[in-house]
């Protein structure tokens, strides 16, 4: 046990800075990937729910939507269904080899994490949208909102609230899964761990250090997301608005207040036949 801590200290002293840099890389990839992944997920969620009206929509539009749905499904299934490490090799080395396209490794890294997260988020968002009462959509449609407005202003904000725990999951998955990007030469935290173990053979020591760093990052993320959840829930109570009224006096009903005196007795005669 004594040994263990001595080894940890040695490891840290030699590679402490590498760990930090690795953690930074990991965090950057996870943040960017989760952010764009969420955007993609929300976009796909909205696209997948475009309503089709068999009577009203022209055939070409229905065909287009159908094709769009097909393409989106393919995207989701393809990127969700294959390992990210293989995707990374195909995209980075495959493109280079076959088409001579040389992507920067960071570009490739961000791209791969984002489209992967996007594929998962698309399903997550679908679940979120399904869970919103259809009455909300009807309410939005009844005032003439288009599908996009409905999604943007009514459905997705509510879905967002419900899937924040899941966004947290995805972020944390990304923190860990970006380690596969070491195949395209991105040195993330886990790769630093592997390098240290490769050099010093101090597996448990390095693993402990890495776990602590991961835990710090994920706990922080969890905490911030919980705060965000609370913020989205809004205040538990509301304040009565007593100042912000219009100079609107129509002789109609006025806001109830404890010393309420009706100003509309004049209309009582009119409504007194029930």
């Amino acid at each position, binding site marked *: 046990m004594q040994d263990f801590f001595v080894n940890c200290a040695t490891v840290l002293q030699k590679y402490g800075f590498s760990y930090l840099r690795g953690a930074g890389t990991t965090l950057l990839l996870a943040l960017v990937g989760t952010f764009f992944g969420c955007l993609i997920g929300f976009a796909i969620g909205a696209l997948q729910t475009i309503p089709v009206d068999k009577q009203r929509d022209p055939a070409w539009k229905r065909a287009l939507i159908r094709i769009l749905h097909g393409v989106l499904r393919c995207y989701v299934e393809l990127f969700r269904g294959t390992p990210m490490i293989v995707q990374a*090799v195909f995209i*980075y*080395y*495959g493109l*280079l*080899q076959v088409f*001579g396209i*040389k992507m920067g490794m960071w570009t490739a890294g961000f791209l791969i994490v984002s489209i992967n997260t996007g594929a998962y988020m698309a399903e997550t968002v679908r679940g979120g949208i399904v869970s919103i009462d259809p009455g909300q959509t009807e309410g939005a449609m009844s005032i003439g909102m288009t599908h996009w407005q409905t999604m943007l202003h009514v459905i997705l904000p509510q879905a967002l609230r419900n899937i924040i725990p899941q966004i947290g999951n995805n972020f944390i998955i990304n923190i860990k899964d970006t380690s596969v990007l*070491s*195949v*395209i*030469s*991105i*040195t993330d935290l886990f*790769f630093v761990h*592997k*390098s240290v*173990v*490769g*050099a*010093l*053979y*101090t*597996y*448990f020591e390095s693993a402990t250090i890495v776990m602590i760093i991961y835990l710090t990052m994920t706990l922080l993320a969890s905490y911030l997301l919980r705060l965000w959840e609370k913020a989205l829930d809004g205040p538990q109570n509301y304040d009565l608005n007593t100042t912000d009224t219009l100079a609107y006096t129509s002789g109609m009903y006025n806001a109830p207040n404890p010393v309420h005196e009706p100003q509309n007795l004049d209309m009582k005669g009119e409504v007194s036949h029930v």
Partner: protein
Amino acid sequence: TTDSTAASDSAASTAETGTEADTTAAPDGDGDPTTLTVAMECAYAPYNWTQSDDSNGAVQIRDSSDYAYGYDVMMAKKIAEALGQNVQVVKLDWDSLIPAVMSGDVDCVIAGQSITSERAQQVDFSDPYYYASIITLVKKDGPYANAKSVADLSGATCTSQLGTIWYDNCLPQIPDANILPAQETAPAMLVALNSGACDVVVTDRPTAQAALVAYPDFVALDFGGGDEDFQVSDEDINIGISMKKGNTALKDAINGVLATMTTDDYNTMMDEAISVQPLSE
């Protein structure tokens, strides 16, 4: 069947049915003196690889229907035979070779590990069981195809395998080199070279020979071991067998076997391994 009880029992049943060796004196690391349990990746031809039958004397992998063979397996068999034990191959990911030997899940790791003094603080190494000379791989039509010395590689974009002497010691010797982060596996390193993501990879002779079969576009550069070549100490290119720290009984036993072999024996064995590796069919 991949039934969990059957799987967990198999180690015990091997012990029961194993040949009656000298159980008291037999050196051991995992609590089963009748068997020499060896961990390797089985994914690094020609040192060790997986094949689907027992041709050439391949050994069945623990809890699997596949077989392992290669230079490391041949060596394992040789040692086990000398110690009067059965040989059992445990196929493990690179990441867990060290924890496996440290925790006593296996007796030793034979997986082409370079012997370094830093590593030797955590595990015990046997004497070298192979001397891996250094080879540089480049593309035939690439800018470095005609390099004659390390100096000629000047300015190259290069990489090699994680945790190897090639990456840690050799690459920095290339003048103005653009050293990419290491690759985890030899195949990944070769994919990088083939795609053009890097110009040069440095590896050892057996790996290079295998690579040439799979990638006919490559050329192997051998700078001759003199002043033109990468400067490495003898210690650096030695690869050894690792076991739990303090397990001197096993270490001495293995060293005893290795002492009976010469460098030529090693090279013959390696040539045999290369000739039967799946790639060469």
